[in-house]
């Protein structure tokens, strides 16, 4: 396990095979992955922090289990990167923000705990837009991430580091978070698999809150199977998050191998308007492929799609303004001295937060302020009901919906940074999934003529990740041959 190219193409089954056939030990793999990630990182800035001690300890546990012939977890020895909005005990967690630059969490997120229980080796924390607010990773206080497929372009956001590390080969799998498209959009921009599970499928305990009713943790991988393995290890009810669901977790690996012949796949017409022509060509070819695999394709309508952006920017910013009130200079590391308590709060927050976070706190505070609650927040929650209803009505007719992830492929760094509304529009096809709370994912489906990756988005019913993985896996396998 010496060459970088070997590490860069590893998958979970290849790690398992290497460990079982003694091609390498977990310790050797961890050292090689760490040194490769550290030396390659300057190209993309995907990692903010490395965790060599934690990685070595995890690898030693795996090697000890191998030596004793004990049960090996489903992620034994697998190098894992964690988005820096997910807390890790004793390991700096910045949320991409100056205000948490030195924050050392006193506990682990449930998702991280469960992945490490399955033998995953956390090698570091991944860059992201500040508090997961952004679509390009340009809002990180620690510099933008570059897209490994085109270094002058953004990797997408907000989980830009999580997507970039998997694409670059510096982590085998990663986890990120999605509130309005922050997993699927970067996955599509970087050409990797990214999954937003059903709301409540994965515990949010330890996910630093942005918009609590929309926040999801989900996996990135180089294959559908790897993403499914990570999701399965994290999923399921957790007492520490009362919104986590009691829904049983399916055997994704068995179910994804079923053929897709006869599945009814809907094409919501609203998602094909305003699409960049080159993206459209690639998506059309992917849809034809699903047809040739035996999916029954039919046009459907989700009539409230055009209201999703407005709805989202009310619900998400309102919840964010309240969630981010806690960063007040009292408990979390950074304080600007002020003459009075109130000055201290204001100066700490004024200096500690970046422009986009301030903009969203302001919008959220405005829509919740006296006299506006019904006109904005309540109205948006009612529209959210209509958007969710569009999905449930469509799912009475079809088993899944297939759409583009983004209207265009990765854009240039700096291209949209001065126009917030234009930036927000890059999430126009992904916001609905979070609002409705349905599972959705991006699976790579081709490239633009310039060689920029394009992702196909798949939505299924609440808690039916199995059908989503089945379509994605069948499609992915068909593209190999």
């Amino acid at each position, binding site marked *: 396990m010496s060459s970088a190219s070997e590490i860069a193409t590893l998958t979970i089954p290849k790690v398992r095979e290497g460990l079982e056939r003694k091609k390498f030990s977990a310790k050797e793999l961890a050292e090689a992955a760490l040194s490769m990630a550290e030396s390659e990182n300057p190209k993309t800035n995907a990692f903010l922090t490395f965790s060599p001690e934690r990685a070595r300890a995890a690898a030693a546990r795996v090697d000890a289990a191998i030596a004793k012939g004990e049960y090996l977890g489903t992620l034994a020895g697998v190098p894992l990167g964690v988005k820096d909005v997910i807390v890790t005990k004793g390991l700096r967690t910045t949320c991409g923000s100056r205000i948490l630059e030195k924050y050392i969490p006193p*506990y682990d997120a449930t998702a991280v705990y469960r992945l490490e229980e399955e033998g995953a080796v956390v090698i570091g924390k991944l860059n992201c837009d500040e508090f997961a607010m952004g679509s390009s990773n340009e809002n990180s206080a620690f510099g933008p991430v570059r897209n490994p497929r085109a270094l002058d372009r953004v990797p997408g956001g907000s989980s830009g580091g999580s997507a970039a590390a998997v694409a670059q080969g510096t982590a085998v799998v990663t986890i990120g978070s999605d509130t309005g498209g922050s997993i699927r959009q970067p996955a599509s921009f970087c050409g990797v698999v990214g999954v937003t599970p059903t709301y409540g499928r994965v515990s949010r305990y330890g996910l630093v809150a942005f918009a609590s009713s929309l926040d999801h943790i989900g996996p990135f991988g180089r294959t559908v199977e790897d993403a499914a393995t990570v999701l399965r290890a994290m999923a399921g009810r957790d007492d520490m998050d009362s919104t986590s669901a009691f829904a049983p977790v399916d055997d994704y690996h068995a179910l994804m191998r079923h053929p897709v012949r006869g599945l009814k796949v809907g094409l919501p017409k609203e998602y094909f308007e305003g699409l960049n022509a080159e993206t459209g060509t690639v998506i059309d070819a992917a849809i034809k492929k699903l047809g040739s695999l035996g999916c029954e394709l039919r046009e459907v309508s989700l009539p409230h799609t055009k209201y999703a952006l407005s709805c989202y920017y009310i619900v998400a910013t309102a919840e964010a303004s309240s969630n981010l009130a806690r960063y007040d200079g009292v408990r979390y590391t950074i304080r600007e*001295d002020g003459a009075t308590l109130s000055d201290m709060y204001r100066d700490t927050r004024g200096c500690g937060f970046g422009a986009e976070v301030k*903009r969203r706190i302001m919008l959220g505070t405005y829509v919740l302020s006296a006299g506006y609650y019904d006109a904005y927040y309540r109205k948006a929650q*009612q529209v959210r*009901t*209509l958007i969710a209803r569009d999905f449930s009505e469509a799912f009475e007719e079809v088993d899944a919906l297939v759409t583009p992830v983004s209207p265009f492929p990765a854009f240039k760094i700096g291209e949209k940074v001065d126009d917030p509304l234009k930036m927000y529009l890059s999430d126009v096809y992904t916001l609905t999934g979070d609002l409705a709370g349905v599972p959705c994912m991006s699976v790579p489906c081709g490239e633009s003529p310039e060689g920029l990756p394009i992702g196909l988005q798949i939505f299924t019913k609440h808690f039916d990740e199995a059908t989503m993985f089945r379509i994605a896996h069948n499609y992915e396998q068909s593209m190999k041959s």
Partner: protein
Amino acid sequence: MKLTDTEVRYVAGLANLRLSDEEVSRMSHDLGEILTHIEQLNELDTSNIEPMAQVLYPADETATLREDYPRAPLTNAEATANAPSSGAGYFKVPRVIER
């Protein structure tokens, strides 16, 4: 929809955010633009629509109640470890009441 600088400063006060004059004028432009976009929601009649808070998996009303057993909480030292100023087990802030 246009927000005046005075309105922006009022909202910034509610949010405990110090904004520079430049930030205030940028904010009134950006928020105005977003709020104008958001006005499209008024096209929809939602008078008989229940608001949606989040996705719920059907379960017993008491399903989320867990057994109440003693567990070790964070220690005082752990809880205050990240504070910029603490002492004697407390978070310290600028003086609020004069003696």
